[in-house]
């Protein structure tokens, strides 16, 4: 499995894969390290700066893992969006809930 896969078909991008899981974990770690990193850096503690650098690196990594997949999914979905929006207005109408 290639974590840094660049080419996705729309139907492949629609599926949940390990890329979503990895991006979520990297994102949370970046948030965690960023939160304590800013505190440490403002107090001029070495660990604070280290945390901030690692948080930045994780953010870049997360972007590289998830962006190609998000792009493929978005482009395919946006092409159908207007059709979906028209359908949405019909689906959620109060009078037509039972098809009347």
């Amino acid at each position, binding site marked *: 499995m290639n974590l840094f896969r660049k080419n996705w078909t729309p139907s492949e991008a629609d599926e949940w894969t390990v890329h979503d899981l990895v991006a979520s974990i990297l994102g*949370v770690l970046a948030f965690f390290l960023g939160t304590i990193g800013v505190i440490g850096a403002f107090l001029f503690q070495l660990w604070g700066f280290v945390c901030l650098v690692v948080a930045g690196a994780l953010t870049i990594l997360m972007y590289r893992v998830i962006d190609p997949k998000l792009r493929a999914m978005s482009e395919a979905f946006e092409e159908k969006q207007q059709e979906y929006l028209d359908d949405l207005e019909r*689906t*959620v109408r109060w009078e037509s809930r039972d098809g009347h």
Partner: protein
Amino acid sequence: MEQVHSGVEFTALDWVWTILFVLLMIVCGVIFYRLGKRSESDFFLAGRGLPWWLPATSVYATHTATDTPMWIGGAIYHWGVRGIWFPFFAAWTAVSAFVSTRIFRRSLAMSQAEWQSLRYSGLGAELLRGWLAGWQTFMNMFVIAWVSAAMGKICVYLFDWPNWVGVILFTSVCAVYVLVAGYWGVIMADFQQGIISFIVITLVSVWGVVAAGGPSGIVEKLETLGQSWRMNPFHFDGFWGLDTNCFYTLDFLTLLIMATVGGLGMGNFIDWYPEAQRIQSARSVRDASYAIWAGGFLSLLRNSVWAVAILGFFVLYPNIQSEAEYEMGWFRLGFEHLPAGMVGVFFAGIIAIHLSTVSTHLNLGALYATRDLYHHYVNPEASQAKLVRVGRWNTVFLLAGAFLLGLTMQSITSWLIFALWLQAAGIWIPSILQVVWWRFNSWAYLSSWIANLLMSWLVVWVLPELGLFPELPNWVNFWLLAFLVSLVYVPVTFLTKSDDLDHLVRYYVMSRPLGFWGPIRQEAERRGLIAAQEGGTN
């Protein structure tokens, strides 16, 4: 209410800064008048066409309110920097960006209430939509009220104005551009307000740190005071315990679980609702994901900047016992230590912080009242012009209600800790289940809401107040409420029918949710609506 007055003197230059900033903020919103009035979608979602950085700034700006430095400052002053984990629940956005944000954006629902009627079917879905719409109309009014109450408190502190003046004045200023330009005004004003507030927050906090002796001075003074534990975010009072005055590892773990697993759900936190509006206003799924991720990250970094400033405040004023006094710590750093002429910039920053939050909740409350109540139930044939007009009237209604509530509120910190997570404890798991499990139905979710509202008030406030139940630490309250409410919604799930299959298939094909959707997926494949699965993990 206990009030503190600063005796701060505003110079002519300070007033010039303040007036210029206020004018800039109003103009930034009002000039989008023509875009806002085009349609319901423009008035409430800016036409669903925004690049990620606009809703991202808005997420950050919205969640930077006048009460935020009070309750985060209060938590840090009381608990040391380990108090930073209380607002860490905002990290749900890191997971949500790639899970629930993606699912919600694909549903195209204008609001969370509308999403309920896409996810569920039948009478239960309608009841849930009506309930959430009413609840959100009230909650947004409530949020405007509490941030306006915080603004009133600041104005008493600064100018010794009567409380009602601060509560009403700046919120009314904000209403001008929300009424005129709707969400277009909100998002554009949020962009410049977000930038102003980030600069001002950093500037004032750095100034406060310097006033406290600089980074090394703070570290030394904390050691001298025997308070160096305050710098350690992982300083816990043991693994677990029942003392409400202690911060246990289990408190931290509970907050961490809430923050991470919570990102799978929709509606677990009250922050979800404004975020849902920002998600749908983004021009694509990708833009929505990055907007939520970046906005959440900025909010957490801001909390950390405040935390250090409050450490500085503690060093300067170490023995304050009154919560009402120490929760004003960050404001005192600015007003007591900035040079003349800069105080006006600081106050303008506070106004930016206030307006960005109020504008969002005015427009969001009006969205629920207009789209989910008026348009859905009262007048489904309403023209776009009529819907925009009703949206404006609903904005006025929210404003008036918020003023009435805001004039009656007392302590900020205790309200917020209750409202932000305890109140949501019982629906935390159901809010995830509704996203990840096809069999979870509308009756189960509705029952969890009702049970949670009753039980959270009883367990957290009413029974301890009457001496019938012990006062428990936050982590116990959270899991206890989660368990008690599950005694209601789990039986309801299995005793009631699942949602209509056609409805679930339609929802699945459009939103492609994560989790336990096997039977629905198989049916969608059987009908040829989606390709048979090969390598996915659904």
